């Protein structure tokens, strides 16, 4: 067995890269796994690839802000295992698979920085080919230079506006934006505005995006209370209701978005303690102020620790790595505090905008809990709201019983596409809180792999584990 790394990091987004840079600065050996072929994570995806002038105009300065960090990461001496998916971790070990094979790597401490994913958006027709997430449309734009000339954006949240504005800059304004933010959210968010002004640049950026859409002449439908997607073998049109009136538009492509939620599978499978975050409407791991989880060898940073965006992700990654350096004895507590205090202050300032944004863009109940029985909740096993309602009536107490009865959450996505909806739906139907309902019990592997790959990855070179 080769000597273990001091730190292994899962994810080469802003959080993982910043953690690696800080770990190296403290003299720790470090390995970083990412299933993507290049560093950057979601926000800085493909940033090193083709930084030609055109894309700068389209994707904006916040995107190119990632170049510095990627370069610092590449210079740091951390080992980057690109194109390598982590399917299981345990104390001291990381099991992975890449194009060239699978194996296990040993490390004394682990940072999970696997980021976020878009919240499920269970509408009637959301499984039709041609319906994707706004993030997916952005990924196609960032990494493949593709824009859809006939796209309708549906939903709420800053990322929806960002992608729609990026489409305008690319010369293809979306044909329609259907905005599902409940009107009453603004009033609820206003008390958080003074604090949000501490991070006013986010507010200006948001207003700027809306101005860009207006200037490009994009039609925006506001205060929408119900949306349905139509088609047989592919999306053909979208229907929506606002102010009690139904309207309809033809389209061959719909991009959905209603915020992002932490990627919880890894930390859930490790039985880390989780909390329900009511304002963000999602699960997040319980962490101490240095981002250590309830598993003493695991730190969680970036959006996986709770949604806060790229700047906070970067800061929280560095904070976690400092604490690991202290835990491993590379620095003492005083040194950690001296280096960490300004980072934590910066984190506090950056997050000042969150209560306002989270309240303003908090998705409405009717879009997180499907209202009609025929709407699919679990995409993999095609389980509908009606079936969930039936098992709740029959006494199913939580998602694991629903899974046992209906196979809900048992397909290849392992509950990622339905987990939050199942928690919210069972909570709404039973009147119990989300925390009491709970989440699917997750286990390793956190991504589907073959039995052969599991065997190849047995620790200690197959000498038994």
């Amino acid at each position, binding site marked *: 067995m080769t000597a273990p790394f001091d730190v292994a990091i899962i994810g080469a987004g802003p959080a993982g890269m910043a953690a690696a840079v800080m770990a190296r600065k403290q003299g720790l050996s470090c390995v970083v796994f990412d299933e*993507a072929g290049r560093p950057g994570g979601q926000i800085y995806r493909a940033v090193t690839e083709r930084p030609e002038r055109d894309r700068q105009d389209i994707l904006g300065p916040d995107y190119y802000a990632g170049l510095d960090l990627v370069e610092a990461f590449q210079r740091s001496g951390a080992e980057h295992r690109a194109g390598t998916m982590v399917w299981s971790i345990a104390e001291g070990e990381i099991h992975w698979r890449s194009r060239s094979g699978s194996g296990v790597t040993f490390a004394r401490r682990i940072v999970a920085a696997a980021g976020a994913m878009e919240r499920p958006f269970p509408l009637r027709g959301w*499984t039709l080919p041609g319906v994707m997430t706004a993030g997916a449309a952005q990924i196609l734009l960032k990494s493949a230079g593709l824009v*859809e000339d006939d796209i309708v954006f549906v939903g709420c949240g800053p990322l929806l506006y960002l992608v729609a504005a990026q489409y305008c800059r690319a010369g293809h304004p979306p044909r329609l934006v259907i905005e599902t933010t409940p009107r009453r959210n603004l009033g609820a968010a206003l008390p958080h505005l003074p604090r949000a002004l501490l991070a006013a640049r986010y507010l200006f950026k948001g207003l700027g995006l809306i101005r860009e859409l207006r200037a490009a002449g994009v039609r925006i439908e506001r205060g929408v209370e119900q949306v349905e997607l139509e088609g047989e073998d592919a999306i053909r049109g979208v229907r929506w209701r606002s102010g009690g009136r139904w309207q309809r538009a033809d389209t061959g492509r719909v991009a959905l978005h209603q915020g992002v939620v932490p*990627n919880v599978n890894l930390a859930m499978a490790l039985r880390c303690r989780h909390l329900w975050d009511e304002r963000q409407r999602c699960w997040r791991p319980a962490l101490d102020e240095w981002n250590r989880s309830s598993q003493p060898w695991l730190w969680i940073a970036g959006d996986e620790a709770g949604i806060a965006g790229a700047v906070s992700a970067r800061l929280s990654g560095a904070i976690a790595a400092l604490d690991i350096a202290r835990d491993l004895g590379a620095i003492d507590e005083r040194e950690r505090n001296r280096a960490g205090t300004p980072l934590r202050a910066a984190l506090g300032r950056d997050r000042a905008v969150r209560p306002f944004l989270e309240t303003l863009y908090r998705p409405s109940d009717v879009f997180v809990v499907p209202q009609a029985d025929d709407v699919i909740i679990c995409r993999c096993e095609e389980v509908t709201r009606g079936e969930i309602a039936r098992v709740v009536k029959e006494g199913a107490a939580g998602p694991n019983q629903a899974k046992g009865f209906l196979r809900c959450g048992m397909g290849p996505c392992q509950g990622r596409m339905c987990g939050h909806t199942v928690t919210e739906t069972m909570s709404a139907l039973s009147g119990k809180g989300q925390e009491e309902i709970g989440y699917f019990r997750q286990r390793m592997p956190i991504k589907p*792999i073959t039995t052969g790959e599991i065997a190849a990855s047995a620790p200690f070179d197959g000498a038994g584990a």
Partner: protein
Amino acid sequence: MFQRLDLREFDTSFTFAGRAIPAREGENLAAAILRADIKAFRSTPRSGAPRGPYCMMGVCFECLVTVDGEPNRQACLETVHGGMVVEPQAGAAEINR
């Protein structure tokens, strides 16, 4: 339909369901198939309904295809190699959990 902003010429091709698709070596597989105006990549095991890429980041598994005889590949995480043979995945995915 998807339009290309990147106007570099295609330098290779592969097949999807027997149809030749022009591409650039090393580009994203799901993107190349979508660009050819193909929306459905697979059908579901329970009802046989058609599905296509939803997340493009490896979490939804709606983009499952068979690549050179190997099933269960996520097209959104694969890169194009000239001559590769890609087939839509019909029905159940043999996946170990």
